[in-house]
């Protein structure tokens, strides 16, 4: 499994291209992906749609390892894509690898 999927890592940007506690959007035909960077320079990637009403998570405020959707303030965990209780829902998550300064995302 790992061998086949490891081929599909896509280099998207440098870590420094994403603001700390901020986000950048990767435009894709299959739906935009939001990249998030924490204060510790961890990078996460989620489908840029809140499970609630489709708000662009990339536009939300990032705190700890959570982003708050700009439309109705749902909190989404960056690590899992799950909505934080008591809200229920989940947004698609993509694997991210940081190699030096390079951010690699597995879109499949």
């Amino acid at each position: 499994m790992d061998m086949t999927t490891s081929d599909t890592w896509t280099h998207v940007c440098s870590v420094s291209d994403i603001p700390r506690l901020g986000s950048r959007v990767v435009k894709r035909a299959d739906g935009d992906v939001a990249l998030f960077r924490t204060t510790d320079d961890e990078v996460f990637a989620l489908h840029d749609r809140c499970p609630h009403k489709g708000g662009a998570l990339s536009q939300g405020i990032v705190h700890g390892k959570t982003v708050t959707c700009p439309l109705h303030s749902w909190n989404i965990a960056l690590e899992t894509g799950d909505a934080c209780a008591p809200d229920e829902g989940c947004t698609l998550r993509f694997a991210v690898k940081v190699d030096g300064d390079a951010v690699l995302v597995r879109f499949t």
Partner: protein
Amino acid sequence: MNAPRLVVIGNGMAGIRTIEELLALAPNQYEITVFGAEPHPNYNRILLSPVLAGEQTFKDIVLNPLEWYEQNGITLHLGKTISRIDRKRRIVMAEDGTEAPYDRLLIATGSQPFILPVPGAKLKGVITYRDIGDTQAMIDAAQVKRHAIVIGGGLLGLEAANGLKQRGMEVTVVHLAPTLLERQLDASAGRLLQRSLEARGLRFLLSKATTEIIGNDAGEVAGVRFKDGEEAEADLVVMAAGIRPNTTLAESAGLHCDRGIVVNDTLQTYDPRIYAVGECVSHRGVAYGLVAPLFEQAKVCANHLALMGIGTYKGSVLSTKLKVTGIDLFSAGDFIGGEHTEQIVLSDPASGVYKKLVIEDDRLVGACLYGDTADGAWYFKLLREGRRLGELRDRLMFGESSIGDSGVQGHNRAASLADSDEVCGCNGVCKGTIVKAISEKGLFTLDEVKKHTKAASSCGSCSGLVEQILMSTVGTSFQETPKTKALCGCTERTHDEVRKAVREHKLLTHRAVYEFLEWRTPNGCATCRPAINYYLVATWPHEAADDPQSRFVNERVHANIQKDNTFSVVPQMKGGVTTPDELRRIADVADKYNIPMVKVTGGQRIDLLGVKKEDLVSVWQDLGMKSGHAYGKSIRTVKTCVGSEFCRFGTQNSTQMGIDLETMLANMWSPHKVKLAVSGCPRNCAEAGIKDVGVIAVDSGWELYVGGNGGIKTEVAQFLAKVKTAEEVKEYTAAFLQLYREEAHYLDRTVHYIARVGLDYVKRKVVEDAANRHALYERLLYSLQGLPDPWQARIDGQHQREYIPIKVIA
């Protein structure tokens, strides 16, 4: 390597609530063991009365089912009473020999019913009313026995009496005092209550001291004898003459007790390893017997167990409600009153309504309501906030609906709503949904209801109504009663404390604030970050760092996000005045970028809706106009009428006045949005009466009004001052707005700020003190000096990457 061990003695509401709060803060901090003397998981003791009355079953009132303990890795010992605490070896021992070592111990042993020390108190058929076991005993007794005497006319006694009556018994309540519920009601309300309970078939013997319980030959109860020599027959006696903190165990362990286990403001006992919460506790000399204070204690205690060490418990204000269906009574605070208080009383005995409000020093300090309690939550709120009544006083007695409140709570009352009636218009939440969430999920606070149902979580205008529903559903005093509210879940600090620290310690960065004020989270949350960002830039203009990542998207991007994630663009049109050239450019931009809607706004300008984020900067460039700040907690517009230039009634040039004000206030950030209007005559076509600052021209000068609001709840602006010159209009306006900028809590509109500090205070600072007014004016001008137009700054390349998506080449 092993986690420290936390042992909890007491599996009731206070102890388990503490654990829940602790798990939320620090899920894996402790290995937790809980001992409960009862054979049941934690249940809602408040709801025993509905169980007794047959309105609910035990299953309905369980708060934490056994699976909850399992899921959270808690070792649970049911039916095991702890008989000894060995503080030297740090071990607790149960009656059956079970031992558990601890590193931290939490005592939550609750209270026990007070048994009158009279002969016969141990006879068969004499029971107390404290737990589900007692409740079941009463239910069983009601099936075979006929005459019940309940000793005690307090909350518990009356609820027991009502339950037994509902189960078919003949019930007499014996009470020492001359009126019922004398700790919750004054004498007038107590008598009304007595009358309506008598109408339900209960009998009362008041001013009666019980001296003996009489038994028969079989050792069963047969009656009660009183001090005056009279007797009454009974085959069931319920002792409900009060509760006493259960301190036996703590005392035997040598912990200092004085009518309760004595704790400090962090809920710590005299042994620093041992904490105590709930009804067993004596805090600042008070032992609480209602649930709200217990939950506040739980929160603080959990904070300290989680080693955060910042919360303190300072005592609670209480309110009461009787859980007898169909009887409405409410009381809070000092409802008896004294030498220094005044009273407003409404008494209508024929229709069974009695209301008494106690006022001291222009503040509501107590309320006692009988028959119509719809405004209980509102009075309780006024009481907790301790806010000055001022003009409110005249209409206080007539309730919240009388104060011109056109919001939801004005014409709807919790009790009269049907389940399908909408309570929260923003999120479409009906009463039934709220009631269901409260009972099924065991919610007790407004915050919890907001989180679970979303009701009152958007505009907040239905908060009062949701609070009423919460009260009528849960029944007794349930809410948390913070006198000052924490800024958010990341801290115990209030807005005022944060503002003060930023000012006095010259904090210039978010990091400095979090460190100095010991934030619980590494970088705040979506609630506190924008607030702190505002406090930083407003307190230290040109010095503090404005952090774009701590601003809500609209203020970061300088456009308004819409439901489909596009943005709206509103260029500045000072005073609502535009030119053919500007209109042509707007039209061209709308064509070029396929803008789906062009709309005239309420603030006299033009909104371009549906702009893609990546087009924003070029749209601004093509418009060649400045930002209208229609997206920020900031200056919005100055609405004007045409004034003396064209209008035959106009007395002053209101249009130019509006333009001048909008020019002066350009780029001003504020605690919430700020809207102004200038009308050229008292006909007030610019609607200055509902603006944060409204200016109305009269022949002899200008009238200034402040604190108006046309939003969620319409508020008419209040008269601030009358001035002569245009320069004075600018100075007074700027001074008032600067005062608001310096002192208001983030997200308070001017109306909320004025309600908090009082209009008199504002007048003192802005109108009466010329030197202070001028200083405020200067400080505002200094804050705004040299601020660039944000659109132009971005056209010039600032924060460029914000607007540019990353493109992946496949």
